[in-house]
């Protein structure tokens, strides 16, 4: 078969045809996969909620979802009794963009647990936020040369970086030690740590209902 000539009609016809076929194919696959994708996202969220509230994966719970500005509050009940609240909070100032965190609180406002839902932080550095802020492991402090800092990174600092069990209401906002707080930032990832703690602090404010001072100009919808 000879190649089609590049006349205006041919070009218009072929490009339109190719695009229409592509559109139909994509619409069909989207139709097939969208329900599965929605189900997977739902399951990921519900297992995240159970994990941050310390509930076993098999237990039956009811979740009442309530959006508050850019946050989402999940009030969790079992057999009609309230057992905890999880707040989904996003901070835009991460090193690689948005950091989305789910934080669980008990009745006194203690942090029961957290889960990093979405992030684009550097692997090996900021990406450790998912584990770092719940481990109480105390690192060792030793002096290292500038060259070895570049190649090996600084050794993890001595001190605590566990936020589970902390109460922002009684103890004030969580801050990294560089900013005068008592939480050790992830080694070589202060920006990630700040963004993460900011998201957690905001989650607490939303939990307490003080939404107005979370984001500039944002107001509570209740």
């Amino acid at each position, binding site marked *: *078969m*000879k*190649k*089609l*000539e*590049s*006349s205006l009609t*041919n*070009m218009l016809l*072929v*490009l339109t045809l*190719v*695009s229409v076929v*592509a559109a139909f*194919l*994509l619409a069909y*696959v*989207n139709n097939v*996969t*969208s329900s*599965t*994708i929605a189900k*997977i996202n739902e399951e*990921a969220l519900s297992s995240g909620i159970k994990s941050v509230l310390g509930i076993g994966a098999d237990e039956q719970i009811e979740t009442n979802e309530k959006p508050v500005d850019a946050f989402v509050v999940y009030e969790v009940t079992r057999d009609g009794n309230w057992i905890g609240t999880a707040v989904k909070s996003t901070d835009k100032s991460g090193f690689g963009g948005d950091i989305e965190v789910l934080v669980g609180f008990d009745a006194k406002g203690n942090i029961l647990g957290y889960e990093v839902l979405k992030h*684009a932080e*550097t*692997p*090996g*550095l900021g990406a450790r936020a998912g584990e770092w802020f719940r481990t109480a492991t105390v690192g060792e402090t030793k002096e290292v040369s500038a060259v070895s800092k*570049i*190649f*090996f*990174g600084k050794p993890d600092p001595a001190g605590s970086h566990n936020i589970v069990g902390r109460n922002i209401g009684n103890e004030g906002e969580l801050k990294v030690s560089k900013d005068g707080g008592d939480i050790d930032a992830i080694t*070589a990832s202060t920006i990630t740590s700040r963004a993460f703690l900011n998201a957690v602090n905001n989650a607490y404010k939303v939990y307490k209902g003080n939404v107005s001072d979370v984001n500039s100009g944002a107001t509570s919808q209740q």
Partner: protein
Amino acid sequence: MNNWKVFFNGLVKENPTFVLLLGMCPTLGTTSSALNGMSMGLATTFVLICSNIVIALLKNLIPDKVRIPAYIVVIASFVTLLQMLMQAYLPSLYASLGLFIPLIVVNCIILGRAEAFAAKNTAIPSLFDGLGMGLGFTWALTLLGAVRELLGTGAVFGLTILPSSTNMLAFVLAPGAFIVLGYLIAIVNKIKK
């Protein structure tokens, strides 16, 4: 040229990463671990094979002057398809690679092979070219990812091999990607001679 020759051409002789130096963005961006490198390679292989076959079949129907937009539509459709399928059936892989999947559209290996091979050959050799180039890309990315992961975090495919005191964080970051790539290209070229 027979099909196997086409296949091995992409795998070794004209390896897209080490010899043609095509598609450097995903090469450097996704290889922070061996698994990420391999997954990116396989995802690209899938798109490459599909787009090569379709373009080889359609080449006479597409007028020369609009061939690039037509090819891009074909490639972008397969990438979107792959993205939806991965999101639905391989959610954990999608979570770690999601950011890079749409970028396969602009990976110059794919448009490059469409122009250089599929537009001049029939469907079967084009399939072998896509397979060879794709797997060539895959092993290169896996090797690069494995070296960076080993030097940076002491593990390969998540299995810890070296103690954490030998970890060199620089290799997980962008500068390490360039350093490792440079050495690997030098080694591969030495062996090929």
